[in-house]
Each structure stands twice: as structure tokens, then as C-alpha cells.
């Protein structure tokens, strides 16, 4: 049962092959048995899951037939869930129970999904390896000595290991696409503003976007359809109709114009990954796509720009964690300053502190123009690169990551080497365009991903291309040994 996709689950539930309660019980048992090896869950909400599964079964018995009714999922632990811990994998929120549900949580619950719990992540979504969690590193089910990627590493590991069929994640610089690539999943970062950020604890507000991780493009389409849409509570959420992602999946790819940016195939890319990516291109050509070499000349500036803008916003976003109203508070503060300094000093981990320091510096008087404003100018250039590129091609294709999953701890001492792993994903966040990563084969038994980028609000196109590819290949059906 744990191998079923969301689409298969929907058919099974409709055909009464199994009930939502049976399914969630089976998966809860699996989580209990297998997750100790992975550490992908921070909180398992078994009681709530059973109640939701029972409710879903009851709704189905009364004639409802929604595609997600009774579907088990889990949420990255930065989506606020009423009366359930929401920790952001940080000591500073280790005891925080939000008094409300995030819009994404609310929408998926309304669609009838059954939430099995809250998933591990890099602390405050800051990281590419899921090693910065206060609750410990998450292991990659493909090789337990390796990282699953991050920051949505718990989401990726849990889905890849078959503990859940799909999960929510968030992507600020690649945090859905990179772990999806490293664990053989399909993951989608929607257009900025497509999915509401209400209740999604902010890392970098102008870059953060929630999205699905699943085993297939079809499952991502199912989840995104329920997650997306206008939310008056988020001023940056766009009031545009949500496409019928499922209907778009089956469009033929004849005439699809694919752009291959030369900057994505330069130094730093593992040659074996390049090979796999080009094999995907060949497969898509067989489906009728045409290919064109293009250039995104400002890509080289993306990482420095990102590591100014994201920390700058984070330094401000994380100011509210001060030990005054919620979360961790230091023991016996002697005065206000001591309360602040020790609560934050003891509550935040090293990577979070590093980014707060970097961001505070970048916004400081005298440095603002040189760092923050300059980074914003680079951001505009990167956006313009994409606008120009999309005048000639429908989607842009390249590797999701330069390397497959690395050994736990291998990059801990050198944060910049970890930052460089986001080189191909960060530009989509800076430009606000949608991006998808899908399984593209294996290198030394480790999964690698190919990334597809599309113009604003063309998630349907990305899902369509990935789905068509998945109809003629089987990389996405491979599962890790032992899970």
C-alpha cells in the first residue's frame, strides 16, 4: 500500500479496495517502524490522523468523491497547524503550538487530506542538506550515510521512503526541487504568489513559496490544484484563476520549444549528471520537442545576490523570536537585554545565526546600497534574462543540482560549498518563476534530477512536460532498497 501514488490511492479509495483509516494506519505503522533510520518526522499526529481518516471515510460514504479525500500527507514543519507543534526545526520554537492553521494546511484539510504529522527540515528552512535541524539531521533513504537535500529534507525523505505518498514543502532557493532531485521525487516550486504564504513561517518573504513533493507529476498536479489560489490574507498572493493542472497533463509535447542555457552546463556540473540531463532531452525530442541553446548571462551573480536578499529579509523576519510572547525563553533573565541575547543566542542554531548576521550587516547604514540595493538590481537583471529567454522557448531545461547527494557532514565546515549546490535553483526564486524537478536517472546508485523552468503561472506546462516524460520512462518508479 505504501507504494501507491495519490492518483492510485484515489482510485483505491473510490473502489473501496481499502479505507482511509486502513491506509493511514498502515502508514503510521511504517513511520513508527522505519522513521528512526531517517528522522524525517518531528511530530507524528496519529490521533488526529485517525480522526481525519474517519471523517474522510464518512464523507466518501455519503457520496463525496474528491481526488484527495482520504489521501495521507504530511506538512513541512513551518506550516502552522492549530494546536499541533510547529517548530521550524528550531529550539526557539521547540514548544510552539500555533493558534491557527496555515492557508495551505486549511485548504488541504478541506480537500479531505489526512495529515500524519510534521516533517523535519533545515532550521527555519536555511540549508541544503537538512543538517541544521535542532531535531537532528535527516538521512537520505537511498543511502543513509548521505543527506536528503534541504531544506525540505524531511518531506523528501519521508516520501522517497514510502512513509507518505506526498508532502508539502517550501522553496526559497531550491528547497523543494533540490531535495526532490536528491531523493528521486517530483517537486514543484510554483510562481511566487500562486500559493498563499499565510501561516507559512517566513524565511525570506520575497522568495518563499510553498509547493508539493510527490513521486509523480500527476500527484504534484493533484496537490497543487488544492494548494493554489488567491488568499486575501496574503498581500503578495495573486488573484488569478487556478489552471486545471490534471487536464493539462495529457497535452502532447509536439512543438514544445525547450531552451538549454549554456550556463547550466559549465564548470562545477558533474559530467555524469550532464549526461543524464541530455538523455532526458533526447527522450523529449522523441516526444516532439525542439531544442535551442540559450543564454542566461546573469546566472553567475545569482548566489551572491540571493545570499544578500534572503539573509536581509530573514534578519528582520526572525526578529519576532525574542523570548517575549512564545517559544523558547532563557532561564532567569536578569534584564531585557539579557532576555533577548540569551533567548536568541541559545534558541537559534549556527546557520540561522550566520544568516541573521549576514543580513543585519547587509542592511546596515553605509552598506545598504552596496549590498541590498545592488542585489536587488541583479535580481532585476536575472528576471529580465528569463523574460528574454521565454520569448524564444516554452520551457528551460537543465540539471537541478550540480552533484548527487553528498555524505552527511561533508559540507558542514564550509557553508559556501553548500550554498553553491543551489546554483541552478536559486534563479527561479529571484525571478519568481515556477520550477519543477523530476527524476532523471542515477549516478552511482544516487538519484539525480532535471529541472524545468517556465514563465509566470505556467505550472500546468511544467507538470505536462514532466508527466509526458514519466509516461515513457520509469526513473520515477524506482524505490530505495530497504524502504
Amino acid at each position, binding site marked *: 500500500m505504501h507504494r501507491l501514488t495519490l492518483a492510485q490511492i484515489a482510485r483505491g479509495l473510490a473502489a473501496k479496495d481499502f479505507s482511509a483509516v486502513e491506509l493511514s494506519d498502515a502508514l503510521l505503522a511504517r513511520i513508527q517502524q522505519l522513521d528512526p533510520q531517517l528522522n524525517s518526522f518531528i511530530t507524528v499526529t496519529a490521533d488526529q490522523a485517525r480522526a481525519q481518516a474517519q471523517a474522510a471515510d464518512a464523507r466518501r460514504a455519503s457520496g463525496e468523491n474528491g481526488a484527495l479525500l482520504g489521501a495521507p500527507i504530511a506538512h513541512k514543519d513551518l506550516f*502552522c497547524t492549530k494546536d499541533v507543534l510547529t517548530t521550524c526545526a528550531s529550539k526557539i520554537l521547540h514548544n510552539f503550538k500555533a493558534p491557527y492553521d496555515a492557508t495551505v494546511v486549511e485548504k488541504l484539510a478541506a480537500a479531505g487530506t489526512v495529515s500524519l504529522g510534521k516533517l523535519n527540515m533545515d532550521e527555519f528552512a536555511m540549508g541544503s542538506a537538512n543538517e541544521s535541524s535542532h531535531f537532528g539531521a535527516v538521512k537520505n533513504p537511498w543511502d543513509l550515510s548521505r543527506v536528503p537535500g534541504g531544506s525540505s529534507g524531511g518531506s523528501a525523505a519521508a516520501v522517497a521512503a514510502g512513509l507518505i505518498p506526498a508532502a508539502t514543502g517550501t522553496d526559497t532557493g531550491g528547497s523543494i526541487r533540490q531535495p526532490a532531485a536528491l531523493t528521486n521525487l517530483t517537486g514543484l516550486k510554483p510562481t511566487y504568489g500562486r500559493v498563499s*504564504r*499565510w501561516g507559512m513561517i517566513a524565511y525570506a518573504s520575497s522568495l518563499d513559496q510553498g509547493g508539493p513533493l510527490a513521486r509523480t507529476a500527476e500527484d504534484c498536479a493533484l496537490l497543487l490544484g488544492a494548494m493554489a489560489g488567491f488568499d486575501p490574507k*496574503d498581500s*503578495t498572493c495573486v488573484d488569478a484563476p487556478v489552471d486545471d493542472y490534471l487536464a493539462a497533463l495529457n497535452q502532447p509535447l509536439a512543438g514544445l520549444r525547450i531552451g538549454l542555457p549554456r550556463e547550466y552546463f559549465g564548470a562545477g556540473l558533474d559530467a555524469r549528471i550532464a549526461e543524464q540531463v541530455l538523455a532526458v532531452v533526447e527522450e523529449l525530442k522523441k516526444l516532439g520537442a525542439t531544442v535551442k541553446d540559450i543564454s542566461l548571462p546573469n546566472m553567475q551573480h545569482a548566489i551572491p545576490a540571493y545570499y544578500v536578499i534572503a539573509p536581509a529579509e530573514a534578519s528582520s523576519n526572525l*526578529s519576532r523570536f525574542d523570548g517575549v510572547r512564545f517559544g523558547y525563553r532563557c532561564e532567569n533573565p536578569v534584564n531585557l537585554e539579557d532576555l*533577548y541575547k540569551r533567548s536568541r543566542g541559545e534558541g537559534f542554531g549556527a546557520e540561522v545565526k550566520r544568516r541573521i548576521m549576514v543580513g543585519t550587516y547587509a542592511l546596515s547604514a553605509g552598506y545598504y546600497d552596496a549590498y*541590498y540595493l545592488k542585489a536587488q538590481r541583479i535580481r532585476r537583471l536575472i528576471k529580465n534574462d528569463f523574460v528574454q529567454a521565454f520569448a524564444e522557448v516554452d520551457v528551460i531545461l537543465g540539471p537541478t543540482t550540480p552533484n548527487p547527494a553528498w555524505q552527511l557532514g561533508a559540507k558542514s565546515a564550509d557553508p559556501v560549498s553548500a550554498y553553491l549546490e543551489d546554483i541552478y535553483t536559486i534563479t527561479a526564486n529571484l525571478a519568481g518563476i515556477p520550477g519543477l524537478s523530476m527524476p532523471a536517472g542515477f549516478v552511482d546508485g544516487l538519484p539525480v534530477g532535471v529541472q524545468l523552468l517556465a514563465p509566470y503561472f505556467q505550472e500546468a506546462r511544467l507538470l505536462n512536460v514532466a508527466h509526458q516524460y514519466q509516461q515513457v520512462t520509469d526513473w520515477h518508479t524506482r524505490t530505495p532498497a530497504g524502504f
Partner: protein
Amino acid sequence: MQWETVIGLEIHAQLSTRSKIFSGSATTFGAEPNTQASLVDLGMPGTLPVLNEEAVRMAVKFGLAIDAELGRTNVFARKNYFYPDLPKGYQTSQMDHPVVGKGHLDITLEDGTVKRIGITRAHLEEDAGKSLHEDFHGMSGIDLNRAGTPLLEIVSEPDIRSAKEAVAYVKAIHALVRYLGICDGNMAEGSLRCDCNVSVRPKGQEAFGTRAEIKNVNSFRFIEKAINHEIQRQIELIEDGGKVVQETRLYDPNKDETRSMRGKEEANDYRYFPCPDLLPVVLEDSFIEQVRGELPELPGEKRARFESQYGLSAYDASVLSASREMAEYFEAVQAACGDAKLAANWVMGDLSSLLNESGIEIEQSPVSAQQLGGMILRIKDNTISGKIAKDVFKFLAAREGATADEVIEKKGLKQVTDTGAIEAMLKEMLDANAAQVEQYRASDEAKRGKMFGFFVGQAMKASKGKANPGQVNELLKKLLEG
């Protein structure tokens, strides 16, 4: 040495929107602590702000009223600093792109001259909560009801040269925001607060002296006292060879002094940057024109109209247009009696004294504009004299009658105009003062003039003021000549 004072004011006006600037919580003053604080106001993780359009509309109203350039693209910025009553660790404000740009406001000084004060900018921002330090046994309490209340911060140019000018300017702003209906102006509740930047320089010197900022002064009287005290302090300091330090000071009305709050060494770097949770707000022409259409007649326009339409003096017109309520009251009295001059005299005279004595505002006046207008009508048609009218007014104030007519009737204050009755009364009075009558008749013209007043006084006294003064004069002259 001759010193010149330079003052610039920052006024925080709480906008009277029903809900907060970035959340749906109510803004009512005085609710139980933390009962008007939503998830957003509490700075709960994951919450996001949504701008209240009404706050923008009110700010635009103000901008149009001071003839300012309006910021067509409005950007909200975060001002970052830590404080327990600032739940997010930043205040959402405006920095580089304020809603209201350069404008100006004319103030009338005591000698009647008009001075134009430049307004640098006015921007929208959210208020913080309140820290409460009493009753918590060494701890502090935080009330976040006020957090997120919309403020318009109005920054003046350093055009003000004395404490009196400063007060006149604050009064003009106070009147304006109340005219516009964008702020209730209640200074005691903190709806209008003032930070005063004060410096002194030798007369004739162009460069500004170092300024000190007096924070949060909350009454007209305190503004004048705080500034005057600060001017004195700075002059004495410099004359004693000291230097003014740029710092924030607090005015203590109990001791009538200002004292240092924090020095520059603790100055914050607020790390302003555009708030990524809020999109830029673009003001379209149609929106601005719609707001312009909603503007009421402004104090300056009203003053000019009172002069031209009612023939009032510049002084009267300026007093009567000082507040929207005063102007509305005056015009209602005028409409009821048809006599602007009498209406103005009564509103500025007896009514104002009454309000001052009782310490109440004109909206709470015990005598309505209708009642006062009705009474003035009776002065005009000779039913009562101006003198008796003062009594009628007091009875109305004491609510001893619903209308002037009722009071006049009930108290028997109707003026006597029957010639026969007046003549009889006068004869009786003259009989009682036979000696004076004889003296009068024996006197020359000049002396008679003086004595005549005595007889008029006696006559009015005898009639308890009710005899028509004109008739009394005329008949008395005839009888005395007789």
C-alpha cells in the same frame, strides 16, 4: 547675546479608521489589555499584513488639504529594532516613498499675521503596543491593543521660531485633522502626540544649532512649557560654555523640566528596507480625485468665506473657524437668527465663557445653536434687551426652559414697550427722587448730561431691566424737561 530659536515638529496623528492599519482588529481606545490584538498584531509566526485602504484614503485627504505632492508609488518599509511592545521586532512604516510629500500650512499668530509653515512629509505607519511597569512585581506587562493602530506622522520644516508659534501650528494641525475627520484629536488619549525638535543659534547665524528632541508631549500647554524650558536650558548651557548634545529628552510636567532619555551613543541603526510582505501601493488619479471630492471646506477657506459672506472681522472669522464644531455651531445660530454679527458676538462671548467655565467642548454645550439663535431673534424684535438676554441665556444653560420664548414667558422677562406703563413707572421713580429732579432742572447742559444717566439707571432698576431702553430715554427726557 541675542538668540534665535529653531523648532521643527513631528506630530503623530492616530487615524480614526475602524480597524488597524494591517489587521482587522478594532481600534477602540480603553479596551481590556490584549483584547484587541489579533494574530497579526501579536506578531504570530506565519502571519502577514494586509493594508487598510481607509488609512491611505485618510492620508491622501491630509495631503490634499496641505496642498502637498502625493507619493504616487507608496512603499512600506520595515524599521527594525527590538522592544517588548513591538511584537514583530520591526515597525512597518514608510521611509523613501511617503504617501504625502512637501506641503504647507498657514497659521495665524497672536498679532493677526499669517505665517506659512512648511511640511516636509507625512507618512503612514503602525503604532506600537504599551509596556506597563506597575503592578507586575518587578516584571513588565505588555498591552498590544494599540499595536497596529494607524498613525500619520506629520513632519514640519524647521520653520517655527517660538513656543507660541509651535502651539499655533499644532493647533492648526489639530483643527485640520478634525475638519478632515481623520483623527479625533484627543490628546489626553494619545490620539495626537508631538515630538519637538528644538535648537538655538545666535541671531543672524545661518547654520542650525545642535537640536534636542523632546518626545511625546501631549497637550498644547505642555508643548509651550516644554519648548520654553528647553530653549532656556540650551541658552544657559551654551552661555556657560557648554555644548548641546543631540539627544532625546522627556518633558516632566510635574517638575516642568526636560531630562535626557537616551544619548546618541545608544542610537539605533534601524536598517530600513522595503517590507517584502506588502506590495507598493500606486495611487491612481481617479482615486485622488475621488478623495478630493470628499474634502470638506477647510479652515482657511471657511475663514475667508466668513469674512466675505457674513462681513465678520478677520479676527472673528478666524476664531469661529478654529474648529469644525465651532464653525458649525456659529453657522447654525446664524441660520436661526439671520444676524451674523450678533451670532458671532454671542458665540464668542457668553457661550465661550460658559464653555470655558464648565470646561466643556462646544459639542457638549448645554445651549443649542437653535436655542441661542431663537434668543437672538427676541433681541432683534425687541422682546428682550441685550442685558436681559444674558439672563435668558443663563436660564437656557441651566435648562430652565426649552426655548428662549419659554424662559421669557416663565420668568416674566418680556420687555415692557407700552408707553403708558413706562411713563407711569418713570413718574413714580422721579417722584421718589424729587431732590435730584430739582437739581437736574437747575443745572447747565453739561451737568445734565451726566445726571441723565443716573435717572436711566434708576428707571432700569425700577423696571428690573425690562423697560425698553429707547423708550425710557425718550420719555425720561420729555418728563425731565417738563
